[in-house]
């Protein structure tokens, strides 16, 4: 069995740029989510009494409650980033249950990209909402000695976000692949269910952690 754990399967070339399977699957997930989101938004705007509109409002309310609980602020930018992350990671976990498809989040490149999005969103949101001076002052609190530690923690938590998601999704996929190779057709079904549960759980954790980091950059709950 040729286990493909860290490498990427190149399926085509667009000029000098290789097109990997991860790029295709993540594009499929993104397009599906955008179309579902557009459909829900149109239903909520045009037919406010329909079941689809109720589903859209319920999903929006649940996500917003999670964001407010985790970040401590009701901020539209934070909510949009968190909802997009949650939807993408859940969608790729669901897509990974199809036979022969590796979930895009089981590739270290895709999870690193998601973590870099969070890494870049923290200073952008912080500077945009609080101003450059107030944001930079956070690095020198409670004491200027802590500035290098703050910098190291920014980098290490980004690394931890990427590796945690990659390891969980990849290990679930690998266990299912090993069982299919060793045992047969229906044996891995309970483990696939567990894999799906872990995928949703990791999406929730990624979202919560992104909300906590963004909320800290916004200075929420710092009245003490």
């Amino acid at each position, binding site marked *: 069995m040729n286990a493909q754990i*860290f490498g990427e399967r190149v399926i085509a070339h667009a000029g000098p740029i290789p097109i990997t399977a991860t790029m295709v699957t993540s594009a499929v997930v993104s397009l599906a989510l955008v179309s579902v989101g557009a459909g829900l938004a149109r239903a909520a705007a045009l037919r406010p009494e329909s079941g689809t509109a109720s589903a859209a409002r319920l999903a929006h309310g649940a996500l917003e409650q999670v964001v407010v609980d985790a970040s401590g602020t009701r901020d539209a930018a934070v909510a949009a980033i968190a909802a997009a992350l949650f939807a993408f990671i859940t969608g790729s976990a669901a897509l990974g249950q199809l036979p022969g498809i590796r979930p895009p989040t089981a590739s270290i490149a895709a999870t690193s990209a998601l973590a870099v999005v969070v890494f870049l969103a923290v200073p952008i949101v912080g500077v945009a909402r609080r101003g450059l001076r107030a944001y930079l002052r956070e690095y020198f609190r409670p004491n200027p000695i802590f500035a290098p530690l703050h910098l190291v923690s920014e980098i290490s938590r980004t690394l931890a976000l990427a590796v945690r998601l990659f390891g969980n999704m990849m290990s679930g996929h690998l266990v299912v692949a090993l069982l299919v190779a060793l045992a047969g057709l229906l044996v891995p079904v309970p483990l696939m269910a567990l894999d799906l549960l872990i995928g949703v759980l990791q999406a929730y954790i990624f979202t919560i952690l992104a909300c906590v980091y963004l909320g800290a950059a916004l200075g929420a709950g710092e009245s003490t």
Partner: protein
Amino acid sequence: MTEHAWIAIASIVMAGLTMAVGAIGAALGESRIASSAMDAVARQPEAQGPITRNQFVALAMVESTAIFCLVVALILLFANPFAR
């Protein structure tokens, strides 16, 4: 024994050791989380919903240490930069 064979032996042994030692810490931590959550539910059954939710989040975060060990072990086995 060539140099390549020694690197292979060391990688395999260390991959097993990484998983074994890494799993001990995660297992102890997760069992403490589970027992504390059960204590809390026994004391306050009406708060089971939030306790279970936070328990799952804490479990997944503790489990990520074992997952880091798994990633390191897989790097040693499948993507070892010294075994060319």
